[in-house]
């Protein structure tokens, strides 16, 4: 890397390099926007098709994937592509709700712990440790059970289990900013702590929070699918992707592979897209990598 740059260090090639970088960033940003629009499209149209997706057509039962039904049909003749689509949109909404709550909890606890410090900080740090030392799946099951299952149970349990890592990041960030010279100076100049928090700390935390929220998505959606799959989450009347896969499990021994393979692959693609979005967002927002 270094060698190449020093070898071609004339002005023009530097301009060329810079232009390349700009295009790279522009391409990334474009990718992000297109992706978000696509995702929103999936959310909006998927739920609208839930009624169509549940229509049974007994003359077309158990068909392997074809042009008419790219994902095949199930044992009631329902089109699996439509079912997967509406299932994904439901999972996405649940995941979004849960990730949002979870990140807000993380933000609140991280901010409180770092601003108040002392005993409060020790208290919240202990809770972060407690949550991190429990296996995720067991807590999810416990919380979903305690909140009575259903949609609420899923959202509550996923929201209450995913905040600790983000809270930890935000706590560390706030500590770092607070000890920075310009923040110390600002306080010495007579700014109130609220003013400092609003003008110095929040703008610094905001990008971290946003990226943290996006990166929470894949986890939230996967865990939502997981507890729905084992049957503690949503009911069969709300065919989220986990329900679809759980139902397909009963028909596996008959060799209808498409019932499980394709919806799961769609879930994987969706999760991966969020991953890419989050990582790119982080690269753009992080001042250390933003110029690369």
């Amino acid at each position, binding site marked *: 890397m270094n060698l190449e740059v020093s070898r071609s260090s004339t002005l023009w090639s530097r301009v060329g390099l810079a232009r390349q970088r700009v295009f790279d960033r522009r391409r990334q940003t474009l990718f992000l926007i297109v992706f978000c629009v696509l995702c929103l499209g999936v959310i909006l149209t998927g739920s609208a098709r839930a009624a169509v997706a549940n229509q049974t057509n007994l003359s077309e039962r158990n068909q392997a994937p074809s042009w008419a039904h790219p994902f095949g049909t199930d044992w009631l003749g329902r089109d699996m592509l439509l079912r997967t689509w509406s299932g994904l949109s439901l999972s996405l909404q649940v995941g979004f709700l849960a990730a949002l709550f979870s990140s807000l909890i993380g933000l609140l606890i991280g901010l409180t712990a770092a601003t108040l410090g002392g005993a409060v900080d020790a208290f919240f740090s202990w809770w972060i440790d407690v949550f991190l030392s429990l296996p*995720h*799946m*067991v807590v999810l099951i416990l919380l979903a059970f305690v*909140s009575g299952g259903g949609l609420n149970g899923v959202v509550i349990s996923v929201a209450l289990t995913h905040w600790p890592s983000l809270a930890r990041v935000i706590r560390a960030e706030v500590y770092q900013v607070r000890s920075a010279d310009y923040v110390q100076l600002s306080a010495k100049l007579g700014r109130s702590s609220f003013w400092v928090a609003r003008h110095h700390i929040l703008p610094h935390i905001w990008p971290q929070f946003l990226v943290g929220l996006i990166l929470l998505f894949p986890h939230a959606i996967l865990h939502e699918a997981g507890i729905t799959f084992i049957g503690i989450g949503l009911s069969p009347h709300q065919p989220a992707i986990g329900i679809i*896969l759980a139902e397909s499990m009963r028909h596996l021994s008959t060799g209808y*592979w498409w019932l499980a393979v394709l919806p*799961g692959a769609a*879930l994987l693609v969706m999760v991966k897209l969020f991953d890419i979005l989050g990582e790119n967002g982080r690269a753009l927002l992080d001042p250390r990598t933003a110029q690369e």
Partner: protein
Amino acid sequence: MNILRYLIKKLLRLILLLFTISVLSFTLVSLSPIDPVQAYVGAEMMRIGPEQRQRIAERWGLNDPPVVRYMRWLSSLMRGDLGTSAIYNQPVSQVIRQRFFTSLGLMGTAWVLSGVLGFLLGVLSGARAGSWVDQIIRFYAYLLASTPAFWLALLLLIVFAVFLKWAPVCCATPPGVLPEQVTFAQRLHHLVLPALTLSIIGIANITLHTRQKLITILNSDYILFARAQGENLFGLIWHHGLRNIALPAITLQFASISELFGGSVLAEQVFAYPGLGQATVQAGLRSDVPLLLGIVLFSTLFVFTGNALADILYHLIDPRIRLGVES
């Protein structure tokens, strides 16, 4: 002795942790809208009148205030009595012990397999960074890092059990065979697919970390010096690389026990493997509160032990780090 002081500190921490979790989970369960009597009665609802419900509630002491109930639960916990599981009709501690040993074989196999394979793949991909081998391994790890465990289990089930018929579709032993007559080979045969699922999922993380670490080390000055002395790539990794990348890999592998436990819940569900994970799901689905609380405490203990072992091992392997306070 430093190590003694360290162990005592860890033990105190564990007790505090278990206490916090017992309070937390007990509070959660008593806040829950689920009526334990109703959950216990279940299908027999029609045949049990209000007086009998009242008697069940009295017998279980459900009319007492939560604090009294918690103290009662805690004092029996101290005596090692975790209560009785309603769905298995056995003491909770016995259910957990039996199920844990079934799961332990599964998790242990997967743990060792994913650790060794993940480490080797990471070394291979780090040593040949940028080559097509590296690209393939990285793509594989990247993809698997967000694959749902239960979906992978379904895929393996479809390919190896349904189509190729190499492996059984379910359970830990063949159906219709008495537990005493099950051979080791049969057990192994039933273990393969669930263990494979967990191993494949577990590989991703350790591969990516080992690769990153090895690349950093191969770019360091002392490697450059060794290279200048004529050491080849194998010698570089064998003499200089392995020691440096083994430690983070070990820590990571021990820290992954929590994830492994979560994965085994899902994998056991798919393969109907009668382990602790399946018991957790059943306890949640069929409102077996004593069993659920027992599993929460036990899994905490399990994960904590894993992390503590990692710490101790770390200190044993790396002479620069010593337990407790040195300075």
